[in-house]
Every structure is written in C-alpha cells, then in structure tokens.
C-alpha cells in the first residue's frame, strides 16, 4: 500500500513536468534515404483523413497537396495576386463571359500522361459531377468547358463573374489526369514539382521531387510533413531537431523558446483566417440586434488578443482580411464601451451557451469573452466540444448554440453570411444582393459593393470578429523560401530550401 502511495504522489509531479518530456517522438523522419541537406521536415497540427480533397472537407488536404502535387491553371502568389501556372496566359472576352486559357507545353502528369486541354475539360466537368464539397457551388457559374486544340481550353460562363478566376486558383481548379483519379484518397496524380512517396498514417507524409517536372526543379529532393496532435509536442520536436519547420505556431506564448537568432528564425505573416465569435441570429437572445450590438461593445478586442493569442494577429472588425482589395478597418464601428453595452441590454441579464471547438485559440478566447461579457450582464457558459466531429455536428450542422468561436480560414469567404441556412442563421436579403452585384460587376464595382457588404455585416452585428489569425512560422536557421503569408489554401513548398 505504501509503495502505491509513493508512486501516485510521484505521478502528480510527473504530470507537472510532462510538458518537458513529451513529444519529441521518433525523431527525424525526413533524413532516411536522401542526403540530409536535400530534405526538410515540416511540422503540422492536423493530419488529413485521406488525400482526396474532391470528396473530403478539411483544410489539411489542399494544404499539403495543392501547388505541391496538384497544380491549377493559375495560382495565388504571396501577395494574393492571381498568376499563371499551367496556363501560360489567358484572354477574357469583352463581355467577360469567355475565358480562353493557353496551356503550357511539355507538361506531364506524374503518371507519364501528357497534360492537354482534354484534362482541363475533364477536371472542370468532374467538379460538377463527382465533387462532394460544399464550396463546389463556386464553379456553378461555368456554362461549358471546351477544347479548342491540345493547348487551348475555353471556359464559357453563364454570367460575368469576378470570383471565377479566383476559385480557379483554389483546390477547385486543380488539374487531374484522366487516368489518375482511380484512387484519389491514397494515390494523388498531379503535374506538380512533388509526388507522394509514402504516407505513414498517424505520423507523416513524404513528398519526393518529381523528376519529370516541367518547371524549375524544387531545391529539395524530399519533404516530410510530420503531424502532431499537440502544440507543445511540435515545439519540442523543433527544439530537439525532430523537425526543421513549425508550419503554424499553435502556442504563441511559447515563441520565447525560439528567441535565439543563432538557432531559429520566426516568420510572421498574415492569413485569411477570421477568428469569429459567432452569434446564433436565429434564436433568442441573439436574434435581437441590440443584444448582438451589446456583445460587440462589451468586448475589449485589444485585451483579448494580448491575453488569448500573445498579441499576435490583427484586429479587423468584419469578415474581410487585409489582403482582400476591399478590406477596410472596421474596428471603430463598435469600440469597447461596457456602459453602452449595458444600456443596449436595458438592464436585462442573459444566460447563454458558448459551445466552442476544443482548439487552443478558441478555448483561450472563450475565457476572455466570458469574463468580459459577465461585466455587462451576459453569463456565458463555456462548453468545449471535440473538434472536428462533435463541433461540426452540434454547432455547424444543427445550429444548436448561442455563441461559438471558430477560425474561418477559407479565402474570401464573406459569402457564407449570404446563406441563411449557414450556422450563423443570418438573414438579410440586402447583403445577398450586394454580393451578387459584386460578382457580376466590374472590378471597381466589386470592390465598392464588397466594402458595403462588409460594413453591413458589421453594422448588423451579424457576428463579432475577434481577430485575424496570424501566420506564425518558426524554422531552424538556414531554412529559406518559407511562405510568409498563408492566404492561399496550400503550404507552398516549391521554394523551400536549406543552406
């Protein structure tokens, strides 16, 4: 009995120091086979369920494969501009309904088949017929896709659309081989600079340089994407040399560990991820605009960012990111003003449920939001739900929540507020009209309309925007070519190198 007692007491101390020991795991997986200077190992937090982004939701798959293994006709560069990739150039007809893409010559799929206009028609038709994602509706605007000759493809739209070309730079525009879609979940076949060499489930994905790549060969021979369940484990792996790069820091307070400039380098850029405090517009008490406005006034966003995410990130105030052409700083719409908030609530108090995903940024932010809402008379009970499964089911699908907090990472995603069945349950026809007009109008009209739409969302207090998620990368000294901004869907490995 006595011995058991001591072991249990020791267990308490062990728990206290568990953070030191855990996680360095089975060391560097990227060094096998190829010479060390030729490969890099990059740490990520969420492993993809499979490798098929045409049928499985989730950001982890395009993050690993798009641009690296699969390529589209166009891609987004680091500034958010659309630049040519598999299309050398494209012409837009005067009525803005016909896009003629001139394809690059001598492009081959990793399976050996040449890339031609037939693959363009095949891939884009396939979006409509086989894809299972919600976002595939973005390409509903396509009327038909035709092959003019082997190196020319013509896309005709039902109406002019500003969003079309942008969507083509996302996973929706990825080019598939007509002979390479049999087993997308395990065997991706693309034209990109890398090919999948192995996938150890629950641990890592290995990419190897594609020997027959059409463009500039990537500097590295191999890349290992190593997946971690826990932010601290990933930090420890970098400290002990298990990985070379942390793709996205999930514990910003820990950055001090990497402060030594002789060993590490920190890159801080921007993302498209709006961390949204969602309010259920469809049921009391947040169906009342005054209550929603009170929430926005009650939250001290600067204090929230400083405490919940170590001051990293940016305050935004609506559903657009600073890299969008129509971005305006809307943080002034609802300044921190608890007295005003109380006045809007009219002295009433509310009990609400804040059902959040069990992710670090959400759990941290929720505690600050709860504390600040309590000051004005809104008592929010925090309930962390397992992410993704339970949160998606309860909050996202069934809409059973009052408040929630989630990082909406998709680029240019203001349109989700136009869908009144979306879990915000926001319903304002005016907003939908603005978005439709923006998509059909000229570029200037688009910018103006979307500015108005963002202002409308903010004025209506359709939600509260806590902060813009930062892109924080930490790498060993000597690693170059890191993508500073995470504004596209992929983690671009093409320029990654090691000195």
């Amino acid at each position, binding site marked *: *009995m*006595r011995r*058991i*007692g*001591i072991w*249990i*007491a020791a*267990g*308490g*101390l062990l*728990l*206290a*120091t*568990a*953070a*030191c020991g855990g996680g360095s795991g089975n060391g560097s997986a990227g060094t096998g086979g190829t010479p060390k200077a030729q490969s890099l190992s990059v740490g990520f937090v969420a492993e993809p369920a499979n490798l098929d982004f045409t049928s499985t939701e989730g950001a982890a798959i395009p993050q690993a494969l798009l641009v690296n293994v699969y390529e589209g006709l166009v891609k987004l560069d680091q500034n958010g501009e659309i630049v040519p990739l598999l299309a050398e150039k494209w012409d837009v007809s005067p009525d803005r309904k016909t896009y003629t893409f001139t394809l690059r010559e001598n492009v081959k799929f990793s399976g050996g088949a040449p890339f031609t206009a037939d693959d363009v028609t095949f891939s884009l038709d396939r979006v409509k017929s086989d894809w299972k994602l919600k976002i595939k509706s973005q390409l509903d605007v396509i009327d038909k896709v035709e092959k003019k000759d082997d190196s020319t493809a013509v896309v005709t739209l039902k109406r002019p659309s500003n969003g079309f070309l942008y969507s083509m730079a996302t996973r929706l525009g990825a080019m598939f081989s007509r002979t390479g879609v049999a087993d997308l979940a395990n065997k991706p076949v693309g034209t990109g600079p890398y090919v999948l060499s192995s996938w150890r489930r629950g641990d890592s994905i290995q990419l190897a340089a594609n020997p027959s790549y059409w463009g500039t060969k990537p500097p590295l021979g191999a890349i290992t994407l190593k997946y971690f369940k826990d*932010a*601290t484990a990933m*930090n420890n792996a970098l400290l002990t040399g298990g990985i070379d790069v942390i793709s996205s820091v999930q*514990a*910003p*307070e*820990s950055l*001090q*560990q990497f402060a030594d400039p002789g060993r590490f380098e920190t890159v801080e850029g921007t993302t498209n991820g709006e961390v949204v405090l969602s309010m259920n517009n469809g049921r009391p008490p947040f169906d009342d605009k005054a209550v929603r406005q009170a929430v926005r006034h009650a939250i*001290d966003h*600067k*204090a*929230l960012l*400083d*405490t*919940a995410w*170590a001051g990293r990130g940016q305050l935004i105030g609506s559903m657009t990111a600073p890299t969008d052409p129509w971005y305006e700083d809307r943080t002034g719409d609802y300044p921190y003003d608890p007295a005003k908030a109380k006045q809007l609530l009219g002295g009433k108090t509310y009990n609400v449920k804040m059902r959040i995903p*069990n992710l670090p940024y959400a*759990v941290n932010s*929720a*505690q*600050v939001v*709860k*504390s*600040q809402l309590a000051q004005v008379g809104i008592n929010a*009970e*925090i*309930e*962390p*739900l*397992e992410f993704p499964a*339970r949160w998606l089911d309860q909050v996202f699908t069934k809409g059973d929540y009052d408040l929630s907090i989630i990082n909406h990472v998709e680029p240019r995603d203001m349109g989700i507020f136009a869908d009144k069945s979306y879990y915000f349950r926001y319903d304002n026809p005016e907003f939908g009209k603005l978005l439709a007009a923006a998509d059909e109008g000229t570029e200037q009209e688009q910018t103006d309309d979307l500015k108005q739409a963002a202002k409308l969302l903010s004025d209506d207090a359709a939600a509260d925007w806590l902060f813009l998620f930062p892109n924080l990368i930490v790498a060993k000294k000597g690693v170059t070519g890191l993508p500073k901004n995470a504004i596209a869907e992929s983690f671009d490995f093409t320029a990654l190198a090691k000195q």
Partner: protein
Amino acid sequence: MSRRTSAKANRGRMNAGLLAGGALVALVVLTALVSFFWTPHDPTLVDAAGKLREPGGGYLLGADKFGRDTFSQLMVGARTTLYVGVVAVGIAAALGVPLGMAAGMTPRGWLSELIMRVNDLVFAFPALLLAVMLGAVYGAGTLTAMIAIGVATVPAFARVARAATLQVMVTDYILAARAAGRRRGAIALRHVLPNIGSMLIVQASVSFAIAILAEAALSFLGFGTRPPTPSWGRMLQESQELLFSTPRLALWPGIAIALAVLGFNLLGDGLRDFLDPKLRRIRAER
C-alpha cells in the same frame, strides 16, 4: 523483545504518517472551504494589464497569461479537486460496497460469480479511457469526469468489501446472529458493515488520491472541468507553453496536486495502521 521493538517502531511511523497526511488533507479542505467566502481576487477575471504579473503586491504567487491571480485560482482549484474526489469516491463506495458485501455473503452462489466477473471486466478498463470516451460522447465536464472516475473505482471497493466480508462471515458472532434467525439484510447492516468499515475508510482515502490525479489528468487533456472554472490540471495545461519563460505557473499547481495526493495516501496508510485490528492487539498486549 524483538516483537515489542518492531511494534514500537511501527507505532512511531504510523503516527507520523497519519499526522502528516491528516495535516495535508486538512490544509486542502480548509483552503477549499475558505475559497467559498474569500479569495484575494476574482479567480476568473481577465485583466490584460496584469498579464504574467510577478508575485507580490497583493498577488502572492503572481498572475497567469490572462492576468488571473494564481493564488485565488489554486484556492478555488482545491474546491474543484475535493468536489470531484468526494463525488467520485461516493459513487464508487455506494455501488461497490453493497455489491462486494453481497458477493462476500454468498460466496458460492451464482450472484457472487456474476458480480465479481463483471467487476473484473470493469477493472480491466482504464479510468482515463472511460472518462475520455464519456467526454467525447456526452460532452466534457466535471460531471462526466466524476461519473467516469467513480464507475472505474467501483471494482476496487467491491473487492475490498468482498474480501473483508468473507473474513467477517466466518466469525462466531455472525454464526450466533444467524442461529438467532436474523435476516441477511440485518446481518449485513448491523454486523458486517461496522466490522469492515475501517478497511473501507482506508480504501476511500487511497481512492480519493487516485481520483484527484485522474481529475487533474483529465483537465490537463481538456476532458475535465470546463474553463474558466479553476482546476489544478487545467492550470498545468495552460502553463505548458510558458514552461520555459514563466515556470512558476506550472510549479504551483504541480506542487498542489502532489501534496494533495501525498496527503490522502499518507492518511490512508496511517489510518490502515491505526485501525488494523492486529496492530491494535499488539498495542493491547504491551
């Protein structure tokens, strides 16, 4: 002579353990009780200006990254810990003791077999896994954690209760009671339970220590007490990323957990020595 010396040594040790354990447990209980009426600061109030405040100036142990007072959080955390311990051990005892006694009083019957084999089955299932599973299905929270820890501790109580009951059942006074025609229920309540009580108290004390550790582990994993209610396990978890820059944030809850667990274990050990009839007899002989 040798017997006497060992008894003397034994008694000295058991008193030290009992006293130290009792003192630690009393400290935790007292802290928890005081936290109901007074804490230096509101333990859940976020104060950006006081982020990572150094100890001193009304903040005895400093503040965490949310500017919350660490000492106040520790105090309320003691309450959470005891609450989970009491309910979990309560569930375990309320289910385990009657089952164990029933099995002990009918040693050769099918009922005994059934109870003890189901018992083995539950015993083989790790408490933490059960709690994580319940948390995933019904939502994480203090209640699910308490129920899971409690249910997983049932077999320990059932086994101790059964073993003790078997010993008691062969004594003369039970034989006398049966000969006098007392009903089984009455025998269980009037004769068996009081005589196995001391062993159950020891078991409760040790189980309490295990429950504290389990609650801390669950909160650490995010399956325990919901934020922002202070809990020692979650304090540890939240201080993880600051382990290198502000190690005190992990140190204090770690020490609190270790002391509480140590306290209940020492208390259990001390009580066992103190209440053990054999040791009592040795003392009586002297």
